[in-house]
């Protein structure tokens, strides 16, 4: 969404500064890293990432770190609590004159969907409830990626994971629908929540920019195309990220104190087949036999969402 007050209206507005150095250990074509790279440009250099166990834990492996800022690896379930400790400590140090205000850092939880949707949900709820002044960046590749793509509660209905493979008894593979963590967060009424995509960089940048005016929890879910886990060639990452938005699978939106706005509404939703058929994790829906019923159910779920949110 662009408005007159927006700082980011076109690609040219995005800073050329890089805060994540190249040559990291994550997979080629990782959508999550691209989203983080863009977010970091808005947040600037004075940050500390508080990391939960996941793919991005291997970004910083002794004695190297690709970040210009600081880093603390915590546990899978408690990165928001780590953020609480650091935020409170820095406030106490600044207030008591032991640290200059210019030494302050933005505290950013960096977690995958396994931590975000499942294991750390209680710690996250606590941090939001305590109105912790922090950013939460979730790279959502819709499965436990770092352990080899096991099903998480972010895995979408119909996807193959290594623990929800399609069988004669369960032809869909993953039989549950993706958990709506945006709405779970929204029920806590934090100042800011957004969904983002690495292929909508202006939308992403403007959302981070807008969130910076708020003191309190600021939460971001980045749909993160994952060549390794979703089974596609890394060169397709950008295309798949775009298709997720154009088919309406991934709604770009934000919530300010609970009030939801869609920041990009596709003029005409593309059929979900276009998104599914280019990813190996949905192969079983198309071959050897097309699973019409399952594809229809996925499409109906998308249509229902957009019907409810003013888009036919």
């Amino acid at each position, binding site marked *: 969404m662009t408005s007159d007050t927006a700082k980011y209206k076109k690609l040219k507005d995005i800073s050329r500064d890089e805060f994540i150095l190249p040559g990291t250990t994550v997979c080629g074509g990782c959508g999550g890293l691209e989203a983080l790279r863009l977010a970091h440009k808005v947040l600037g250099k004075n940050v500390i990432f508080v990391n939960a166990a996941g793919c991005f834990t291997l970004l910083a492996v002794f004695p190297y*770190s690709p970040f210009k800022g600081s880093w603390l690896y915590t546990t899978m379930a408690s990165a928001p609590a780590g953020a609480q400790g650091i935020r409170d*400590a820095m406030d106490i140090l600044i207030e008591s004159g032991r640290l200059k205000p210019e030494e302050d850092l933005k505290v950013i939880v960096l977690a995958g969907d396994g931590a975000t949707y499942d294991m750390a949900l209680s710690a996250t709820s606590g941090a939001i409830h305590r109105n912790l002044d922090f950013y939460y960046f979730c790279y959502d590749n819709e499965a436990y990626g770092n352990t080899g793509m096991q099903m998480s509660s972010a895995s979408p209905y119909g996807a193959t994971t290594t623990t929800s493979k399609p069988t004669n008894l369960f032809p869909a593979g993953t039989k549950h629908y993706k958990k709506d963590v945006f709405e779970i967060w929204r029920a806590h009424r934090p100042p800011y929540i957004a969904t983002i995509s690495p292929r909508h960089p202006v939308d992403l940048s403007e959302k981070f920019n807008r969130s910076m005016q708020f003191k309190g929890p600021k939460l971001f879910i980045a749909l993160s195309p994952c060549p390794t886990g979703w089974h596609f060639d890394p060169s397709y990452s950008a295309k798949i990220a775009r298709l997720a938005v154009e088919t309406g699978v991934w709604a770009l939106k934000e919530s300010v104190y609970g009030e939801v706005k869609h920041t990009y509404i596709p003029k005409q939703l593309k059929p979900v087949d276009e998104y599914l058929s280019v990813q190996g994790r949905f192969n079983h829906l198309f071959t050897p036999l097309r699973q019409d019923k399952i594809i229809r159910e996925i499409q109906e779920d998308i249509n229902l969402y957009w019907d409810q949110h003013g888009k036919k």
Partner: protein
Amino acid sequence: MGLRGYLRVKELLTGNVAAAWGVRLADVDYVPAFPITPQTEIIETLSQWYDEGLMKGKFITMDSEHSMVTAAGAASAAGIRVFTATSSQGLLYAFEVLYTVAGWRVPLVMVNVSRALSSPITLEPDHNDILSARDCGFLQIHTETCQEVLDSILMSYRIAEDKRVSLPVLVNMDGYYLSFTREPVEIPDKEKVAEFLPAYRPSHAFFQASHPMAQGIAVLGGAIYSYFKYQMQIASMNALEVHKEAAEDFNNIFGRRYAAIEKYKMDDAEYVIVMSNAFATKGKSAVDQFRDKGYKIGLLRLRLVRPFPSEEITEALRGRRGVAVIDQNISIGSGGIFFTEIGALLCNETKRPVILSFVGGLGGKDISMVEFRKVLDDTITASNSGSVPGTQLLYTEGEWEQMKHLLEVAGKYAGQSQ
């Protein structure tokens, strides 16, 4: 010097409130907390003091012990003085984070108020909770009195913040027997505490914009992992000396001396009972009664449990006729935890006493004079015969009669003999 300095006025404090006083005197910046019985009175007291402005910094209620210890460790990694406390199930809920925070090498001080572990769920103490954490890298100080609780917290910050150590500390006290028991406690003068414990100036772990730092990062490969674990082992062993120095200073400033182990009536003792924590008071009382009857018996109380003061313990037990270790814990399928540790220390000694193993006091069960008598008799018999029984589980006839009745009520008693 205030009046208190002359008169050494003591106040009647519970172990929990004594712990809170230790934290207050140490000028702790930050207390993330989560309630659990029997620790709760500590955080209630601290919460009140922060709210009334008597302490500066922040008290915050977290969403679990797992989160609580993470926040405490992270704040400590950011360079402030932090305290937290828990018990029992709470310590186990935070278990993963204990290893994590110890690996961060931060000087967090934490109190565990011992309470036996579920299941069956219960309230009174034994030491399976604290001893489950013995391998994680936290130093451990086990206390017997409310005064020792307060003093040990001050000593713990001093030791944890020493560059030769840089490891967190767990101070243990028994639930109910210490946590809710009032004893006369001398609250030290603030100026004297400042002399003993200077303000914390982090040199190892902190976060600031001009000095980016990656903490707690992953390592790949056993040689790198081993390096960091060996560093922790060396640092923990350094704490033996650092504890000694701190104890010396503490004695000079406050007039109370704490050693890594306490030797009670040990000088001429032929037989030694080894115990820890508040039940050591029961053991000392038994020693007094046996002494009155002419037995040469003493008690060794384990205080600094990690690092384990091997030399002091070996020195203290070498050449005795018999040693009885009463473990208020049980490693199911093995027996007493301290028995195996002390046995390992003495096995290479040529003047080695017989070492007997007893388990008692689980879930706060009393250890009565009858049981201490059994411990002494067995130790004398074994040291005469050289034939040593396996681990014995202490239980009195009276307790068994009562248990039989309860089993009958539950419909589970079918006349078994045990």
